[in-house]
C-alpha cells in the first residue's frame, strides 16, 4: 500500500498544511505498514528542497520508499538529476497521450551521464487513455528494453492533469469547490485495497466509480482518516460489481511498491504483459446502448479514429 500525493505539491508545502499532512503520513505509515510515499516534483527550487527533506525524514522514520511522480512532458535530465541528488528511491514517469519521444530522449541523456543510477525509473502508462496506451508503452519498451519498467498506471492519470490544471489556476487560497477538486475519471474498484489516494486538496478519495456517494471526501483529522480507511474496503468489496470487475488487476500496485524494504529497481519485465491490456470503450453491444449514449460513444470513437488515422 502506498500513500499517493497528487498535484503540484504546494498543498503539503505550505506551512499551514505541511504539519498536519506530515503528521498524517507518519501515523499512516507506522500504523498501517505502508510502503512509502509518492509525491509530485515542485517547480520551485525551495519547494523541491522542502519536499526532499520531508521525504528523507520519512525514510529515516522507516517510512519505506519515496517516489516522485513526473508527468511525461516535464521529464528532463535536470529533473531526474534533482531526484537522484535528493536521494529519492524512484521516479515514476506519468505517460499520458503526449508523444513520449521527448521524455525518452531526456531519460537517455540522463542515463548517458549516470550509467549506474541509484534512481529507479518507472513509466506509468495512462490506463484511462487507450488508443495510445499500447503505442506509448511500446515506444518506451523499444527504447530501453528491460532497462526501465513500463507499467500500467494504477490510476487514471487524466485526473492528475485535471487536478494540476485546477491547482495551477486556483492560485493561493482555495475555495470549497477547489478543495473538493475535480473527480478523477471513471475508474474501477479495488481502489482502497491497494492505494490510498490523497487529493491535492488534502482529502482522501474513495473509489469514485462504485462509491461516489457512499463515501464523501473525508477531511477529518488524521486519526479519523486512519480509522475510516480501514472501513472502506469492507464496503467497496462487498459490491458484486466491484468484486467481479474485470479491470481490478489494473489497480493492484506494482510489486516493487508492495514491500517496505524493496531496493530501488531499474529493470525487469513489463507487468503490462501479465495484466488486462485492452480497454473496451464500449462494454457489450453498441446497438444495445440507449440512443443518446450511443451517439456520444460514436462521436468519441470517431475522434479516436481521427487522431490515429489522420496523424502525419
Amino acid at each position, binding site marked *: 500500500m502506498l500513500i499517493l500525493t497528487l498535484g503540484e505539491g504546494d498543498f503539503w508545502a505550505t506551512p499551514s498544511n505541511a504539519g498536519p499532512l506530515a503528521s498524517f503520513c507518519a501515523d499512516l505509515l507506522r500504523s498501517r505498514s505502508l510502503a512509502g510515499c509518492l509525491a509530485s516534483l515542485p517547480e520551485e527550487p525551495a519547494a523541491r528542497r522542502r519536499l526532499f527533506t520531508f521525504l528523507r525524514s520519512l525514510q529515516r522514520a522507516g517510512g519505506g520508499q519515496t517516489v516522485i511522480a513526473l508527468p511525461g512532458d516535464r521529464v528532463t535530465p535536470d529533473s531526474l538529476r534533482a531526484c537522484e541528488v535528493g536521494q529519492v528511491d524512484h521516479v515514476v514517469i506519468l505517460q499520458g497521450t503526449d508523444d513520449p519521444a521527448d521524455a525518452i530522449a531526456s531519460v537517455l541523456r540522463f542515463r548517458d551521464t549516470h550509467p549506474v543510477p541509484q534512481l529507479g525509473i518507472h513509466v506509468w502508462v495512462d490506463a484511462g487513455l487507450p488508443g495510445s496506451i499500447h503505442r506509448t508503452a511500446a515506444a518506451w519498451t523499444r527504447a530501453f528494453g528491460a532497462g526501465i519498467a513500463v507499467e500500467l498506471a494504477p490510476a487514471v492519470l487524466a485526473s492528475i492533469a485535471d487536478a494540476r490544471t485546477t491547482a495551477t489556476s486556483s492560485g493561493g487560497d482555495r475555495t470549497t469547490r477547489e478543495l473538493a477538486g475535480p473527480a478523477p475519471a471513471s475508474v474501477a474498484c479495488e481502489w482502497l485495497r491497494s492505494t490510498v489516494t490523497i487529493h491535492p486538496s488534502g482529502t482522501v478519495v474513495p473509489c469514485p466509480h462504485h462509491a461516489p456517494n457512499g463515501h464523501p471526501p473525508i477531511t477529518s483529522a488524521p486519526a479519523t482518516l486512519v480509522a475510516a480507511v480501514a472501513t472502506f474496503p469492507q464496503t467497496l468489496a462487498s459490491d458484486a460489481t466491484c468484486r467481479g470487475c474485470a479491470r481490478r488487476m489494473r489497480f493492484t500496485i506494482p510489486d516493487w511498491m508492495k514491500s517496505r524494504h524493496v531496493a530501488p529497481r531499474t529493470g525487469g519485465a513489463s507487468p503490462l504483459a501479465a495484466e488486462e491490456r485492452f480497454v473496451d470503450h464500449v462494454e457489450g453491444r453498441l446497438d444495445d446502448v440507449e440512443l443518446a449514449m450511443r451517439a456520444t460513444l460514436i462521436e468519441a470513437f470517431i475522434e479516436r479514429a481521427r487522431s490515429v488515422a*489522420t496523424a502525419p
Partner: protein
Amino acid sequence: MIVSIEIPVIRGGWLVQCIDSVLAQTSLNWTLSLLWDGGDALSRELLDRLAALDSRKISVHAGERLGIARARQFLSERSRGDLILPLDDDDVLEPDAVEQFVVAATMMPWAGVLRARRSFIDDAGAPVVMSDWFPFERRHYYRGATIDVANHAHPYAIRREAFLAAGGWTGFEDFLGMGEDCGCFTTMEEVSDIGLVDAVLYRYRLHGSRTSHRVTNANADEMWRRIADQAIARRNAPVSRTTQRPPFTYAATPRPVPSIDDIAVVIPFWETDQREVPYQHSRPGPAADSGIVTLRPEAQYVQVCEPPVPRFSRLSAAVSSTGPVDGELVLALFGAAGAFSPDLVVRHRVTSSVPLQFEFVNVPVVNAGDGPARVARIELAFEPALGRSAHVLVHTIRSHHGETALLRFFEDAPGHCHRGLHRCLASLAAAGIRRDAIHVIEQRASSAANRNTGIRACTAPWVLFMDDDAELSDASTLPTMFDAMVRLDADLAGPKLLNGTGRIYSGIPEVDPLLQETRVGGMGEEDIGQHDAEQLAPWLPSTVLLVHRSVLLATGGFDERFEGSQHEDADFTLRARDRGFDCCYVGSATGIHHNELRNSQFSRNSVYLAERWKDRPDLFAYPLTRAERGLRKHS
C-alpha cells in the same frame, strides 16, 4: 512492412471495439480496409462516419452482400500491404498483433501464412477461459494430401506474394461463401509454408449471433471434405480419402507403371565460357585427409604447383571462417617456384555476414595475360578490411606428397558449358528421352528460379532435374531408378553420383541429427560399391533428381530465396518429406557430375536452410519405410 487489416462488415454491435483494437496497435505499420457488405444500419452509420475522415490509413468500401469469401477477395485486391491480416467485425486484435506479425514475417521469410493463437471473450468483452477447438500445430500430410484441414483458425497474416500466387479467397456459394479461410490455407500451402507464431494475438468473441452458428457440424464436415478433395485434385496427389471427418485418412491409389515417355527433363543452364584446368588436388577427399590453414595478413599460405598450372582466368579456393568476413583475398602468382617477386597480384573482396562454411570463393583473374604463362607458385593471404580482425581458413588436402590447398583453376574456353550441355543431352537421348521433353532454361537466375521456370513449362507426370554439367552414365539409370521407386514406394529418387574421375561425388545422403545439417555421402572416396544401396533417404541432391509431379504441385517447387545454387535441393526434398512424400537413394543407378562450380552460395544458403528447419529435427533422421512406419504406429 505494412500490414493490411481487412474487415468485411455486416454487424455494428462490436465494430467499435474491433476497430479500436486496430487503432490501439503498438505499431503504426498498418492500413485498415473495411467493406460494408450489406450489413445492419449501425455498421453502415459507423462506416459512413469513418469514410468521412478521408484518411489514407482507413479505406471504406460498400458492397451488396458479396458473401464472406468475395468480400475478402474484394478487400485484398484493393489493399496494398505486404501482409494481409483478416479480422472479423466482432473480434478484436491484441495490441501487439501487427508488431508480432511483422517480426514473424521477417524471421520466417519462407512462410506465406503466419498463424498465431487466439483467446476467447464473451459478448461483453470479458475473457472466456477455454481451449481452442482447433489444433495449433504444424499441418500433417500424406503424399501431398492434407490430413488435418481443420488445423487452422484466426488469427493469421498472409504474405501478399503468396496470396497472389495462390489465387486468393474462394468459398462455397451454397454455404454463404464460407470455407474461404480453410480453403485459403490449403492453397497457400501449395505455394509456400505455414509459420506458427506462438502468441495470443486475437480475441474471438463468443456470442449468440456468430456467423459460425449458421453452419451445422454436418455442413462444416461437408466443407472440409470438399476442401480436402479439391486439394487432392489440384495437387494430383496419388491418394483417395477414406474417412468423412477431419483429420482425414487417405489410401494410396495405384500409380501407372512409369516409363521413359512419362518423363520431362528440366536443365538449368549457365554458360561461363570457362573450362576447368586439370589439377591434382581440385576435389575434396575423405575427411581424414583434409586439413585447414589459417590465413592472416602476416600468415600467408604458399602453394607450389607441381607441375605448374597453365594460365587461368578464375581460381576457386575452398575457405571457411569462424564468423562474418570482410576483407580481401590476396593472390600472388609466380612463374617460378623460387622467384622473389610475383608476376601478378590479384585482390578479391570477400564479404559475408554469416560464417563461411567450406565455401568455394571464386577469384576472377581479369588480367591473366599480364601474369605468367604457367603458374609455379601461388601465395594466398587475407587482409581484413579496416577495423576488422577476422581471418579465414583455407582448406587443404594431405597426401604423401604433403599438404596442398584445395584449389580449382578455370581457363577461358568460349562455349565450353555448351559442350557440357551437349554431353548431358546426349546421355538423355541415349536413355530414350525425346528432345521435345527436355526444357533447357538459360537465364542468369538462381538454380531454384531456373528449375521453377522449367516446372511451369512441362506437364509430364514425372520430372527429371539435371544439372547441365551432369550426365546419365548409361541407358539403365532411369529404369533402375523407376524400379527402386516402385519397390520402396517412393516419390522422389536420386542416383549415386560419380565425378569425372570415377570417384564418388555423392553417395548415400547423410544428415547430422544434432547439427541438423545435410551432407553428401562419400565425397572423394573410391567407388568400391560401398554406396550401391537402395534405401529411403532423408534428402537428395538435385544434380540428377527424378520427381513425381504431385510433389511439385504440393510443395510449389523450389524456394527461390536460395541464391545461386547449393542447399535449395536439400530444402526441396525436406519439404517433400514434410508433405508426406518419400525420397529414395538408388545406388544401383549412376550419374556423373563434372561440377563446373559456377554460382555457389554455400554458406549463406546453409544458414537459411538451418534457420528454416531448426524446429524439425524429425526430418534430420533416417526415414523409415511406409511399412515400418505402419508397424511402429500399430505397435
